[in-house]
């Protein structure tokens, strides 16, 4: 029954590094990231555009990578949770998540971090309700969200604070 499906070459810049491979047109971006680029930080929770565990930034915008075809990212830029750490230093969001106990099993965390990153890039100083709205597309079955919200709040303060220190 299985007919060979013709593949297409694509090139996607993931966390700054060019990644070239062939994919079937139906391959989802998340499967390309996990199985072909071997970056397994991005999770698959539901595959139904619901849980947000697969959230990555595509050309600077958060998307659910289970609902984008890999071919659609051709010549584009993707940022995943692995790209947050810089020079061996965790990103302020990652540090705040750890400090504030914003994760338990950790399954939702990569997606939440990417949603939080997208939120803070657009709105460096969000209110609690803006944070809630910003992560409405990410489900967490463990924490009850309170610590996630306070971690994002703390990270925002820290990142804002750091910006003023640099100025």
């Amino acid at each position, binding site marked *: 029954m299985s007919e060979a499906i013709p593949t297409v070459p694509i090139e996607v810049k993931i966390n700054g590094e060019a990644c070239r491979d062939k994919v079937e047109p139906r391959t989802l971006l998340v499967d390309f990231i996990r199985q072909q680029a071997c970056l397994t930080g991005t999770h698959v929770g539901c595959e139904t*555009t619901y849980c947000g565990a697969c*959230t990555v930034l595509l050309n600077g*915008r*958060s998307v*659910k990578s289970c609902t984008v075809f890999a071919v659609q990212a051709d010549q584009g830029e993707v940022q995943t949770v692995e790209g947050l750490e810089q020079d061996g230093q965790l990103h302020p969001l990652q540090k705040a998540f750890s400090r504030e106990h914003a994760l338990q099993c950790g399954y939702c965390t990569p997606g939440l971090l990417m949603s939080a990153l997208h939120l803070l890039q657009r709105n460096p100083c969000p209110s609690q309700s803006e944070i809630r709205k910003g992560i*409405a*597309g990410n489900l967490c079955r463990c924490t009850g969200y309170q610590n996630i919200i306070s971690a994002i709040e703390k990270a925002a303060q820290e990142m804002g604070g750091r910006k003023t220190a640099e100025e």
Partner: protein
Amino acid sequence: MLSQLGEEAKLLAGGQSLIPLMKLRLAQPSDLVDLNFISGLDTVDKGSDEIAVGALARHSDVADSDVSGQVPILRDCASGIADIQVRNRGTVAGSLAEADPSGDWTPVLLTLDAQLHCLGSQGSRMIALEDFIEDAYSTVLQPAEVIRRVRIPIPPAGSGGAYLAFKRSAQVYATASAAVQLQLQLQDETCRQVRIALGCVGLTAARATQAEDFLSGKHPSAENLASAAEAAVEDAQPVSDVKGSAAYKKTLLRALVRRAAERAVRRARGEQLEGGHEYV
């Protein structure tokens, strides 16, 4: 290209309806033609008398654009659809083409008398949104015809509008929703150009014309707005489903129409109000 591929080929815009449907095998297109590689389609442009929303303008593009500050009902709708990830992909044109009976754009754009500029192998045509949606998930689009842009007349000075949708959570479609757009006459503060449309009421969103007629020419007193809401609910025929019984949805609609009308009036008076979708 679509016409060469035949009737089973489909256009891919944001993919936020089509890809989930393909996973469920509810859609099995023979070929997909991806609009996303065509540049210049993602624009939200304001002309002298209309706003043109390009075929690839995402919900978040509309939410972020200046024009939706001027026509706040657009931001109410755009900023509350699903979650930011879905809004970053899903398009206004794709939503209209999908014609989901619980979709948010149809009621909102019905109150603004939107027109769809469509291109097909037969050439281009303008279709009023009123005439565009035939039934649930069904439009008058021909197989190889695409929505090039959605054209929204800019409401006259002194207008205000608001959209309210009631949802169980961000990721689900609304249980009930109401859009109200009106103009307040300067001299006597009576309502003109009243448009009221309801979502999640059967197979397609629908205008509540009885309620519109009732409110036209009247002062927007609390009593009149409540009576208009009552008239809108009389027009409406929501159906019972997993989200609630028809009676429950009517109760919701009554409150949503009244509150949306109150907000529309306050905005027509120049107040800045945030709002849109409400979760339980």
